[in-house]
């Protein structure tokens, strides 16, 4: 059987599995907004673990990471730093976000910030930042999907057709089963992508070099410049090292598709163990990526686009079944991020825009159907963006990695009580200045003085936020006492038992009445 038949067949087998899971999730869900958008806040450790890691690692882990090692060498092993930091942030900040979400029924990041800062302007700005800087990832993941299926089929399925097909599948199971469908498919996707990357890298290193250790020796002998800092092109300067650590940990955690996941956990203990153990998956996925990228630099030194190194090596040197298995894994990596971003944007637009400003008092089923309509709209926009290359989009994608990072001061202000709390004016001014500085330091003068734009922008944001907050009106005592009191009590007081007790005695205003109807 020809390689392209096996490869394409395995990808379609994987797609079939996701469709079946979407169907089963639809049977299990109810037309309740918390169930559709937040998995009913009942996600246990295993499901939450796999959905977080599968969402965190996108097509980049398959294509971009190998390309980075290929081009910039061992410096990209710095990736371990931001993956471990992501775990620590989840452990400390994530658990507070979870507790507040549970106590006050928050669904989106904007819910939490708008409640504390008592400001609709904060809600709108947070929603805009959340959507603007993640919607572009729909385009990135969709393009990755089109590329993968095009390579797997030997160009028998065009890039445009492949993109369209896989976007419809991802959007379809999301519309059918909500976040439950996303989580169930992410479980399969997380396992598949991890095994695929490891299997592919090990098989290639044994076939091409006789094993990983022999690979390292060849790299040292033929490309020693790849084994030292700051790398062949001088990319990994100290400023870039620190900047990437911050942007790709705090910046990604604060994106809505990750932050919303904290709300969905069944308990705070689940979040703590999530934070303690997700770095194992996230970090060790870069070990095979190093083998692929560095080995590829020896075997195929003149590749025009380094991001293609993994599929190029597979197509040339791996058996057909393995190529198919791994490309299906790459499809899983891209789809698991795509569906999560679609879900996050749907949630923000349904909750923070439609329900808040357009139709506040409708039945839960109405919002579920509106959410489905929004997914459809996002798919159309995503598809158009993915088959066209527009100049301003390239700029926005450049900004998007550190865009959500600008929500850090506002989020810390809610979750970490201080004697002088931030104010809505401080947070808004900080976001405005931070985004301006981000544009300047990533587009006009990229990484000025060798320091990543994320560092410049977040420093300007914090400085502005603190300064403006010192001279403007703070949230009311009642709000600060209510929210910071809840945090104090949860973290240092009665913990989860106290939280449950508080919910029993003064249940939060339920956003939507429960409904038992099946979708």
């Amino acid at each position, binding site marked *: 059987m020809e390689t392209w038949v096996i490869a394409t067949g395995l990808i379609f087998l994987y797609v079939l599995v996701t469709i079946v899971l979407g169907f089963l999730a639809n049977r299990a869900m109810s037309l309740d907004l918390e169930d559709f958008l937040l998995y009913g806040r009942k996600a246990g450790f295993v499901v939450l673990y796999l959905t977080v890691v599968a969402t965190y690692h996108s097509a980049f882990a398959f294509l971009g990471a190998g390309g980075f090692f290929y081009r910039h060498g061992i410096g990209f092993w710095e990736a371990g730093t931001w*993956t471990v930091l992501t775990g620590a942030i989840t452990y400390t900040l994530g658990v507070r976000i979870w507790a507040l979400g549970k106590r006050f029924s928050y669904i989106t990041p904007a819910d939490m910030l708008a409640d504390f800062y008592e400001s609709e302007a904060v809600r709108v700005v947070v929603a805009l930042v959340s959507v603007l800087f993640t919607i572009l990832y729909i385009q990135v993941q969709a393009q990755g999907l089109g590329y993968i299926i095009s390579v797997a089929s030997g160009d028998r399925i065009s890039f445009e057709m492949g993109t369209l097909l896989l976007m419809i599948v991802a959007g379809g199971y999301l519309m059918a089963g909500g976040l439950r469908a996303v989580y169930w498919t992410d479980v399969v996707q997380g396992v598949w992508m991890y095994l695929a990357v490891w299997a592919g890298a090990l098989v290639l290193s044994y076939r091409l070099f006789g094993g990983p250790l022999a690979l390292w020796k060849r790299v*040292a002998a033929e490309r020693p410049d790849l084994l030292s*800092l700051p790398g062949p092109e001088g990319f990994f300067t100290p400023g870039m090292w620190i900047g990437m650590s911050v942007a790709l940990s705090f910046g990604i955690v604060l994106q809505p598709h990750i932050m919303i996941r904290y709300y969905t956990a069944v308990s705070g203990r689940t979040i*703590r163990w999530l934070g*303690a153990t997700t770095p194992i998956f996230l970090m060790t996925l870069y070990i095979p990526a190093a083998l692929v990228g560095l080995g590829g630099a020896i075997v195929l030194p003149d590749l025009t686009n380094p991001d293609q190194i993994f599929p190029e090596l597979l197509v040339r040197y791996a058996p057909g079944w393995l190529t198919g298995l791994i490309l299906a894994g790459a499809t899983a990596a891209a789809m698991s991020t795509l569906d999560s971003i679609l879900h996050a944007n749907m949630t923000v637009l349904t909750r923070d825009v439609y329900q808040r400003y357009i139709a506040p008092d409708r039945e839960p089923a109405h919002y579920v159907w509106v959410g489905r309509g929004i997914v459809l709209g996002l798919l159309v926009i995503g598809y158009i963006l993915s088959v066209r290359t527009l100049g301003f989009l390239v700029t926005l994608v450049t900004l998007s990695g550190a865009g959500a990072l600008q929500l850090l001061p506002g989020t810390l202000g809610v979750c970490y009580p201080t004697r002088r709390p931030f104010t809505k004016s401080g947070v808004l001014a900080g976001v405005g200045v931070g985004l301006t500085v981000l544009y300047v330091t990533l587009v006009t003068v990229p990484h000025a003085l060798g320091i990543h734009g994320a560092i410049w922008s977040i420093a300007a944001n914090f400085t502005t936020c603190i300064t403006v907050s010192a001279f*403007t009106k703070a949230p009311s005592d009642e709000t600060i006492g209510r929210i910071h009191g809840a945090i104090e009590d949860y973290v*240092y007081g009665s913990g989860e038992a106290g939280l449950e007790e508080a919910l029993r005695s003064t249940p939060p205003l339920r956003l939507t009445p429960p409904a038992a109807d099946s979708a």
Partner: protein
Amino acid sequence: MIGKEVPLSFRSHYLPRSRTGWIAVLAFLGLMTLVQPPLVFWVDSRFGSAWVLGMPFLYVYLGAVYFALIGVLIWAARRAV
């Protein structure tokens, strides 16, 4: 309430309040310092040519510190810090 302290009685949430909390935070920050500039660049220039277990020293060094950092997080979770 402009530019004034909020009249709430609380202790800092940025500082640990228990011995195990202090150990976890200091261990994590100390280890993180080992994989950040300027230390990591010094390690590369000083030991860059060395090999450990058939792999470049920097690769093994970074990997070992990352696993130690994860160990601190797991230790903290087990102690419910």
